[in-house]
């Protein structure tokens, strides 16, 4: 029970960097929507983070990391952060708590992809509190709080299932419940400010180092490995998507940055288990299949508007499998498929499937209930005018 100042320093800064990812998502999404909903996307990110902060410190952390109950959820011992103090092993308990808080907040922000440009603010707040409680907290418990997935030996270094499968498939469910944007498919809804999306992407790339390397919870060689593979997967993902899009037509910068995010997502569960050369494969494949998922999504006329499903959902799923494929005992103590460990691959697949099913189903349920009770969606006029003016009374630029 002794603190290490180096590890503590590392996780303190990492936490700040992960917090910055939430407005990063806001900028990323805000640039992709139409100008009239720019502020809305940014505000949703801030609000997501703020409500999760309060939920987490009052009871969410306890649900996720309290003493395990039946492998499913944590007990209420840490409600109000009781017993979560300034000391701890390696790093202060409070610091671990807030590092995890940053993950929870970010996850809800990613989910706004599915309801972009059409959700009621009040409904989002209610939905968000329910979602983080009923979806995020259990998933975090399963993987990291001593739940069944952890017991089974499922590997999720920094949140492939907890953060990305959950938000990606959650966004899909949400999009199905709330319905398409008015005019979707009839006229083009181009990204209105791509440089903001690229800036948001840069902040995400930056924060992701902290997200993945910080998940080592120590400033050590494992953190360095996570850092390196994170960067490699991002770069490969960016180039792979760019190349694929170039072959099919145009090397758009949105594709490039989406590919980087896809690579980052896919390496997330694997970052502490695979080496640099595997990261090239993981990132490259992620760039290609997430691009494919996006094409599939648009061809099907689905309005999961900002592609959390294609990038986070599909990328996270691939990452969970890839961890089971490329894990090397030399790095994280566990071997994967390519080293003959079929079992690990099957565990990964099971974990990913359950997370996908649970996140999708539970999100669908919550969304339906919220929609019935208070209504998820703004009025037709409000949507036409745009949420910036209609809800916030503001215009992004004058």
């Amino acid at each position, binding site marked *: 029970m002794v603190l290490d100042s180096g590890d503590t320093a590392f996780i303190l800064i990492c936490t700040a960097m992960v917090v910055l990812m939430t407005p990063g998502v806001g900028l990323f999404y805000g640039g992709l929507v139409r100008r009239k909903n720019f502020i809305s996307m940014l505000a949703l990110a801030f609000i997501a983070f703020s409500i999760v902060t309060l939920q987490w410190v009052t009871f969410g952390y306890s649900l996720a990391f309290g003493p395990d109950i039946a492998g499913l959820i944590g007990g209420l011992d840490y409600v109000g952060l009781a017993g979560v103090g300034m000391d701890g092993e390696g790093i202060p308990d409070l610091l671990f708590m807030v590092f995890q808080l940053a993950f929870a907040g970010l996850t809800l922000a990613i989910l706004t992809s599915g309801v972009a440009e059409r959700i009621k603010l009040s409904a989002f707040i209610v939905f968000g509190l329910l979602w983080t409680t009923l979806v995020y907290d259990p998933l975090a418990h399963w993987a990291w709080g001593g739940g069944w997935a952890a017991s089974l030996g499922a590997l999720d270094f920094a949140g492939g299932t907890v953060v990305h499968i959950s938000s990606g498939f959650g966004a899909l469910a949400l999009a199905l419940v709330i319905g398409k944007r008015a*005019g979707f498919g009839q*006229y*083009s809804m181009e990204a209105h400010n791509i440089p903001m999306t690229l800036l948001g992407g840069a902040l995400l790339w930056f924060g992701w180092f902290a997200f993945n390397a910080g998940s080592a919870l120590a400033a050590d060689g494992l953190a360095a490995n996570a850092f390196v593979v994170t960067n490699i997967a991002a770069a490969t993902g960016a180039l792979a998507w760019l190349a694929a899009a170039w072959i099919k037509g145009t090397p758009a910068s949105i594709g490039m940055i989406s590919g980087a995010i896809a690579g980052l997502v896919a390496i997330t569960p694997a970052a502490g288990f695979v080496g640099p050369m595997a990261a090239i494969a993981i990132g490259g494949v992620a760039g290609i299949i997430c691009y494919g998922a996006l094409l599939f999504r648009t061809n099907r006329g689905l309005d999961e508007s900002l592609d959390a499903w294609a990038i986070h959902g599909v990328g996270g799923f691939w990452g969970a499998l890839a961890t089971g494929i490329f894990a090397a005992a030399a790095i994280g103590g566990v071997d994967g498929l390519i080293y003959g460990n079929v079992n690990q691959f099957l565990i990964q697949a099971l974990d990913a499937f359950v997370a996908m099913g649970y996140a999708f189903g539970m999100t669908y349920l919550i969304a339906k209930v919220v929609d019935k009770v208070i209504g998820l969606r703004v*009025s037709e*006029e*409000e949507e*036409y*005018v745009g949420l910036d*003016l209609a809800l916030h009374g503001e215009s992004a630029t004058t």
Partner: protein
Amino acid sequence: MKMIIAYIRPERFDRVKEALVEKGFFALSVTEIRGRGAQKGITLRGGKVSIDLLPKLKLEIGVEDTFAESVVHIIREAAWTGKVGDGRIFVLPVDFSVRVRDENITTA
């Protein structure tokens, strides 16, 4: 010659453009404006919020006199949704017009 000035919904622009091209009218200039018609914009949540200026696109198309009516017709058809805010088209007389490049003066 006539100058046709059309205020339309931004989301109908692509459709209007295509309709014009189909009939052989290529030239046009587009400006982003904000505006309101006689309805004073949109009122939300039972009058609590009222948005009086909405983004519109303004098209300007200079055409020979004989084409004016058909261009107006094309635009109107492609821009029509039937809801408040569809816009308005004005046709103004032009004394004369010149092309900068070839100095070929058209008077009408």
